[in-house]
């Protein structure tokens, strides 16, 4: 099994559309030099300002500053115009070599320069499995509570003490239960014994906007993983607000034949 490694861009960053509808903004660097060949990308993006019906297309590029080449161009995202909104998550196959500089830019249909926030970009060396799954595992539903201060991780919550099978692909959806508007943050998938957990996939982006009086839609996440049978799985989360927020997580894992 592949040793699952990942790297995060780290920290909330904004990309800003150009002045004028359809005008590209400047590239914003997310990785100065990637550590390894990466095969999969997770990217969450959300709008942060008012306005309605903004169509946004962003480019994911590699190359030196001023010499960026778009690997994926015109990735489409729609901003409903709320002050913020649930993160739109992209989980895509990508194939970029070690040492790559990764930068992202965007354009939209607004005449003004508009900021969109990317809480994190995560890259991993694990690629998409092929074939038909040989087993499926519904993991226990868990409530994860973020830290009470901005940027502080909450308590680690055990999802399962020991995986009965290896998992090659994971699908998670979560919803925020607490009544707080406009929070952005990250969650970590961890393995290891209690007290000795380490990030296996860290800093997955999430955000929330909703009226405190409304329930929020669940947000999907999926992608390849490399988790061995017998591993202990846990989760933790943090946000950018000084309130402990409850989030409900549900995961389904798939095991594939040896690749």
């Amino acid at each position: 099994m592949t040793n699952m490694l990942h790297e995060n861009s780290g920290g909330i960053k904004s990309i800003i559309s150009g002045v004028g509808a359809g005008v590209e903004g400047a590239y914003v660097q997310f990785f100065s030099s990637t550590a390894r060949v990466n095969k999969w990308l997770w990217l969450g993006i959300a709008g942060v300002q008012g306005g309605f019906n903004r169509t946004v297309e962003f480019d994911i590029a590699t190359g030196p500053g001023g010499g960026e080449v778009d690997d994926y161009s015109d990735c489409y995202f729609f901003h409903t115009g709320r002050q913020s909104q649930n993160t739109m998550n992209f989980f895509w196959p990508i194939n970029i070599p070690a040492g790559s500089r990764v930068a992202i830019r965007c354009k939209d249909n607004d005449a003004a320069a508009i900021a969109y926030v990317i809480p994190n970009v995560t890259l991993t060396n694990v690629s998409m499995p092929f074939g038909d799954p040989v087993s499926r595992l519904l993991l226990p539903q868990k409530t994860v509570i973020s830290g009470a201060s901005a940027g502080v991780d909450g308590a680690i919550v055990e999802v399962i003490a020991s995986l009965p099978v290896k998992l090659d692909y994971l699908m998670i959806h979560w919803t925020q239960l607490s009544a707080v508007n406009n929070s952005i943050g990250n969650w970590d998938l961890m393995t290891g014994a209690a007290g000795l957990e380490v990030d296996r996939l860290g800093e997955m982006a999430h955000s929330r906007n909703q009226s405190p009086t409304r329930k929020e839609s669940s947000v999907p996440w999926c992608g390849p993983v490399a988790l061995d049978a017998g591993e202990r799985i846990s989760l933790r989360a943090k946000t950018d607000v000084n309130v402990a927020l409850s989030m409900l997580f549900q995961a389904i894992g798939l095991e594939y034949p040896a690749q």
Partner: protein
Amino acid sequence: MSNYLNEASPVVSVTSGLAPNVFGAFALLIASTARTSGWLWIFYHGIGAFLNLGGSQIKLNIATGPAGLEVVKICNIGQSISSGSILPGGYWQGYSIPWTFGAGLRLSCQVTDENTTFAAPYRVKIRLWEKPFP
């Protein structure tokens, strides 16, 4: 460029049928796919202030074939809008689907919703990746 080969449709406008649960006309996504693909990403959303529906299920079909002879290949890709979603602007969902499309195919889409009795506007964009990912 080291990335996996991929191709994307433009952002396509499509409208639902004139009655609840009736699909609207097909809208062209890609006139002829460039290569065999193994992974499909779909992003679609509604637009405008018609969203005060009190809850609605929306479904999307992806079809192949020439205009007038479309055959639905992926059907009823759904999303829902809650009664609270009254703000103008829309709602959206993105999907990743492992699916094999051959090269040279014409791809189109159509949309239905369960509430509107008019041609409600939606936008769709898809992206296809080569197969397999090494």
